[in-house]
């Protein structure tokens, strides 16, 4: 079983549209499992029309809660909190749970034993069925921490099912950026597909995400999306990739059909058969060749 993760650095370059198309194309050839690792803005379900089979609670971190009766407003908690999470008051103090990182420093320091630590539900995760195979996805509640932990959980579940059922491929739709959820999404991947757009921002962020995949030892390929937007930036991406020994496996043109497919809730390769779809088919063939070579 191979694991392919779709990443980008910069947001909005087309990761999810590409992931959905690859899920469609790959599943026509072999059993495929999908995981949406962008748990704070999960969009894959919008184009895969999943039927939810299971729903599970995700317990995230803990937060400090102050017992107002026991609090003596001595200020010790505010003194030790490094996350500005303590809200001082005249009679008693309180904790801003959106700022609390659950370190329990205040819990240990409170002389009045007025603070307790409470586990919080931080989200939910789901196992679903789609016409292209099983999908594991999640919803991290607004503003929660521990997205990396939830990504790891979703991927673990997807991987176990893929191994149990003898699936050949796990496609992981990654989050933007280069930080904790991206690192969790890339862990254990055989290959990363970096979706980049030919803009100054796209090029800048490609260098950062490639640095990240190299740092964690995941081989990478590049797909240039909206490739006819700017010839000069395309050349720059190609030169950069050549200098780093990274293959460019596709040039998808800028076309409104990608948005139309999204509005229709379909992968673009299901929605149309134009230039975008045929380039994505070629791209998939190249990726497939490299995954199982």
């Amino acid at each position: 079983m191979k694991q392919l993760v779709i990443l980008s650095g910069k947001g909005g370059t087309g990761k999810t549209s590409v992931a959905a198309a690859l899920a469609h194309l790959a599943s026509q050839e072999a059993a495929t499992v999908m995981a949406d690792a962008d748990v704070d803005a999960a969009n894959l379900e919008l184009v895969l029309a999943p039927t939810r089979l299971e729903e599970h609670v995700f317990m995230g971190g803990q937060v400090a809660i102050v017992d107002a009766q026991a609090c003596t407003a001595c200020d010790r908690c505010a003194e030790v909190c490094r996350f500005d999470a303590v809200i001082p008051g005249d009679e008693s103090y309180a904790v801003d749970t959106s700022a609390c990182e659950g370190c329990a420093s205040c819990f240990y320091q409170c002389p009045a034993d007025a603070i307790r630590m409470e586990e919080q539900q931080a989200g939910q995760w789901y196992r679903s069925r789609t016409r292209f195979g099983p999908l594991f996805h999640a919803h991290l509640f607004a503003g929660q921490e521990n997205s990396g932990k939830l990504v790891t959980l979703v991927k673990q579940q997807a991987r176990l099912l893929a191994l149990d059922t003898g699936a050949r491929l796990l496609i992981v739709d990654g989050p933007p950026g280069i930080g904790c959820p991206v690192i969790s999404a890339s862990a254990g991947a055989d290959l990363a597909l970096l979706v980049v757009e030919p803009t100054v921002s796209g090029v800048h962020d490609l260098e950062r995400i490639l640095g990240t995949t190299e740092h964690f030892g995941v081989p990478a390929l590049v797909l240039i999306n909206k490739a006819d937007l700017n010839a000069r930036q395309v050349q720059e991406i190609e030169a950069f990739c050549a200098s780093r020994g990274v293959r460019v496996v596709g040039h998808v043109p800028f076309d409104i059909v990608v948005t139309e497919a999204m509005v229709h809730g379909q992968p673009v390769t299901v929605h149309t058969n134009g230039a975008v779809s045929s380039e994505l088919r070629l791209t998939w063939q190249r990726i497939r060749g490299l995954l199982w070579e």
Partner: protein
Amino acid sequence: MILAVASGKGGTGKTTVAVNLALAVSSQRTNQSDAEVIFLDCDVEAPNGALFLHPTIERRQEVGLLIPEVDFAKCTYCGRCAEVCQYSAIAVVQRKVLIFAELCHGCGSCALNCAEGAIREKLRVSGVIEQGLARGPMRFAQGVLNVGEAMSVPVIRQLKQRAIPHDAHRCLVILDAPPGTSCPVVETMRGADLVLMVTEPTPFGLHDLRLAVEVAREELGLPVAVVINQDGVGDEGVDRYCQSEGLRVLMRIPMDRRIAEAYAEGRPMVEVLPEYRQRFVDLYRRIMEAAGR
């Protein structure tokens, strides 16, 4: 006035709106009493504002977290530090203390709880904060997370602490937020007077806008207004949502290939399409109204 520019979904035009608003307002500044513009790039995983504003960096400061360091002359291997650490960043096994720096949140609880005073804290660098001036003229600051580092929140927190002046109410402080809805976004929005959501009228845009609005309004209690970018693509979902939620749409930027091409080259819209200069000044006026200023 502290304005956070956010979106949920990536690539909807946060940086475009933040940069052009900053340029339009700063160039209109005719005397000392007008608001000085301060641009903070809080998307520390993929910071792109500088590609458009070309700041001259005058100060660079390495930032990170204070992580524990054990003085083995004093350590009794009692294991208390490992017991109080909520992140499993310390393990005491036989006569060894292992510190997993990448798991540490820098809360300092281990040092406070060490009865022997055997734990000192030292800075572990995970990023850099750069401050300077950009044409406009405006003050510019950005945080840059080092490649391979997981935690962006400490860099964002320190960027805001250093670069937001005490008289922020007299300035226009623009915070360019990262995509998503989890802790880095919360850290960016916290303390803002208004959150301006830049969205695209597509199903992905709407899905992530809802989540981002939930973070800003429900979690943080901040007022929210909307800019619709690429107006005309996609469907009616975003407009219907804004209407039903009572969210004011302060500006609409049409789908225009010239804007995309200028962006690709790193050229601000207000310079390529001068008619937008006044439109962004108008946006500023509406922002002030929406924030009750």
